[in-house]
């Protein structure tokens, strides 16, 4: 993946994710984690290479068909990416837009089923009472839960979580990742999650990919991380890295 200004963000990255897996992506800021996740649902167009989704090459799908692929892949963002001035319910409902006819948007209309589904999604993340609040009235952790509820509306087969807890404090981080874990185990949703902290990786991920300067420099199970030597660790995180919060 090369950006228009010539920055090479990813190079020779190749990996496979199994259905129902919880895959962690680690690496320094700027190592290409976000780019990698955004290439998967083609928010960024990869300059070369292929993306295979359920055995189908989606790298060059036209916009119309891409829509049907994207709606099966939920995404959770570091900055939550909620529409701050809209209500929580509207934000959650907007996760359903991939399934609704576009012209309904002009009338701002969702079906009754969709509305009930949105309430259920909010119940699942534990904030049904906030449905009619404005999104920016919620705390950071609550906003991220709305983000997860929005992804849930897509009935996703996979969730891409781009540093979902980097803007939250550690206690909330566990709560948010707990929800993702629950979706992973209960609904068998594949989760691809980029993370900063190793202890979070060890706690939640089944498998881990380490990126550095756009290249995969590490791949292994969470036991591998637990056993990882400091030198190996520095290879991923660079010279100044210090292990934090780990055992």
């Amino acid at each position, binding site marked *: 993946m090369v950006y228009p200004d010539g920055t090479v963000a990813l190079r020779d990255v190749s990996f496979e994710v199994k259905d129902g897996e919880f895959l962690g992506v680690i690496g320094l800021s700027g190592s290409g984690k976000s780019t990698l996740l955004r290439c998967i*649902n083609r*928010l960024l167009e990869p300059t070369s290479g292929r993306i295979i989704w359920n055995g189908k090459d989606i790298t060059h799908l036209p*916009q119309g068909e*891409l*829509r*049907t*692929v*994207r*709606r099966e*892949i*939920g*995404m959770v*963002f570091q*900055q*939550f*990416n*909620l*529409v*701050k*001035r*809209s209500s929580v319910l*509207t934000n959650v409902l*907007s*996760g359903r*837009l*991939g*399934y*609704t006819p*576009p*012209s309904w*948007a*002009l009338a*701002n209309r969702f079906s009754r089923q969709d509305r009930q589904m949105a309430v259920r999604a909010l119940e699942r993340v534990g904030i049904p009472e906030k449905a009619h609040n404005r999104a920016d009235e919620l705390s950071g952790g609550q906003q991220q839960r709305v*983000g997860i509820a*929005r992804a849930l509306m*897509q009935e996703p087969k996979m969730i*891409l979580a781009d540093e979902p807890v980097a803007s939250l404090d550690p206690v909330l981080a566990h709560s948010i990742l707990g929800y993702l874990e629950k979706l992973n185990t209960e609904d068998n949703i594949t989760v691809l999650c980029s993370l900063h902290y190793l202890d979070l990786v060890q706690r939640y991920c089944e498998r881990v990919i380490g990126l550095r300067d756009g290249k995969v420099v590490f791949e292994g199970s969470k036991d591998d991380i637990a056993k990882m030597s400091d030198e190996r660790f520095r290879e991923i995180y660079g010279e100044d890295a210090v292990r934090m919060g780990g055992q």
Partner: protein
Amino acid sequence: MAETKNTQLTENPRGSLLHAVLSLIVPGLGQFVAGARSRGISLLLTVLTLFGLSMWTVAQRARFPEYAMATSVYFRIVLACAALLLFLLAIRHLLTRFVLKDPLAETFTMYGVVIVFFVLMVWVGDDILATVVSAEQLSQIHAGTALYSGGALAALWLWQVGDAARVGNTKQLPLNRDGSKRFPTMAGAIVIACLLVFALGYNLTGVDMPKAIREYQDVGILLPRILWPWRAAFAYDQEVFEVVQRIQAPCTDEAAAPPSNPVLDDDPWVSATPTCGELSSRPVTGGLILGTELTITGGNFVPGQEVLIRWANPIGNPFTPRGMGETTIIIDENGEFETKLNIPDAVISPETATGAQVHSLIIRQESVQVFGGRLSNEMQLALIGLLETIMIGLMATFFGIVAAFPLSFLAAKNLMAPIMSAPERIVGNVLGLLAGGWAGLQVTDFVSDRLGGLDQAPVQIFLVGMIAVLGLGYLGLQLGGRLSEALLSRLGKDGGYWAAAGLLAALAGFPGYQMGLGFSRGVRAIVLGAEVAAINEEFYGWIGAVLAAAITLLYLYRKRSTRRVPIGLMLYAVIRTILNVVRSVEALIYAIIAAIWVGLGPFAGTLALTLHTIASLAKLYSEAIESIDPGPLEALDAVGANRLQSIVYAVVPQILPPVISFTVYRWDINVRMSTLLGFVGGGGIGFILLQWIRLYQYEAVGIAVWLIAITVALLDYVSSEIRERFV
């Protein structure tokens, strides 16, 4: 490193003589040679421009027959100023060298030189001029402009000479971080240039403070009427009472004197005693012999207001008593009055003035009904005009929103930039849009015939036309794109691309042909004359067509690797350019055109203001769109929402507050603008305001100005209140 060099510079500010001399001869040359290219060029251009500008100003004001003569005169003035300045600088140099050795003195003595130079210009400027310019020439030029602009020009010239010396000595220049030389600041030159422009502006705008003070009286008379015009805002019903007492002159025995009028209970009355007597007379010897004194009493008049006492002669013509004038009396609080009056000398021809004559003593009261006032005509006109004005602003804003809101999405870079399209698709889009638009027009025509023409059902036909053209155009755009993509894909990947490129080039030929014709008619016709240019204008049309096609092909050739054209950015650029051009022309100018188009009146104003409003609101809205948080947009893309859904759910909620704020602000501006639109025939209060100004009806003018001011202030307050709620 840089630090040490910096100190060296201040300790040893020795410059390069060579570069200084070069710049003395040609401004900026020294800097240019020393490697500061752009500095040298901009200095040269600045000096030349300012010299030309000041010279032209001086010559214009002087009405010189020849500019060459003006140049030489002006050049001499600049030289004289430069000499004076050099003299002062020399004194400063000696002063700082031998007397004031403090480094601070460097700066302060420079201020001193500037102040002394300016003072000398003001006090002995004329003498300086007289030494270099002959008295005759001096009488022909504007001494002030010449002197002050010349002084500034001399200063600028000398400044850049000194600058060349500093810049030329490249070894002493401090270095930037990247190793390039850091040139000294140009603040001095900029300040001098600003002063020069100020001096020119002062004279060109004819600033004349003494005149403003001296002739204040002229405006002093009418100002109160404009500032407090409310007397003219109301009209009062008047009640007129006229009662008559007959007076006979002279008293005779044959005819009985008329009776004194009785005292009435309810109606106004007047009675005089006696009711006969001698007229006043003017003997040939001069003077005036007063006639009989009458005691006049009256009652039941309106208290506190005046009555007029007049006379009428025996045949009923009222007259004003000579030497006495009309008498007015203020009625007391009981509605009564009592006064004494001599019978005046009646102007009656001696033949008829025989025997006893019966004159009439008339008491007239024109009472004003203070509490029965109503709005005067002027006030009513002003109010109607004001209402019209507000409505013009409102309608223009309304139409503006309707047109600008959709446009603004096309003019927002962040939304348009990601839109890439394949040429295979664009061909179909263009053809489909044209076909759809044409079909829409046919539908409109058909409907128009059915409804009996535009005059019969204008609103219906307009609506049908809008919907048909826009709807079918959009349908054509979509269907055409899909159709052409499907068809061209049969030619294989490369074949389809190049076939599309060929078709697009052919399409570009049409506007190219028109532009070629336009060039022939617009540019060649000026040089060759319209008849000659018309002979082979088709040839130029074809050149234009071929050029446009070639450019299109070349562009698509360069895009062959990605097979995608940034059509969104192109549309964005076109729409932004159009909006900027439309916005840069004032609504007043549009109103002049609209007044010719649809006639004088509020519709012309609305039309003009709408055009301007669309352009500026679309710009403001699109800037609001460009500054949204891209996060939600990205999230909705990830969800699988299409463009329309993203706009409704991610863009619109974010831009709503600024859009409301901008719209209210624009409405505020529009009402303010529409007060002036009437000046050029756009209707509203301005229309009558201009008439009143031309008729010198300053009280009416004052009413209009007050109403405008009140409305604008209120609107300003309301609009800022509304905007505060939404930000």
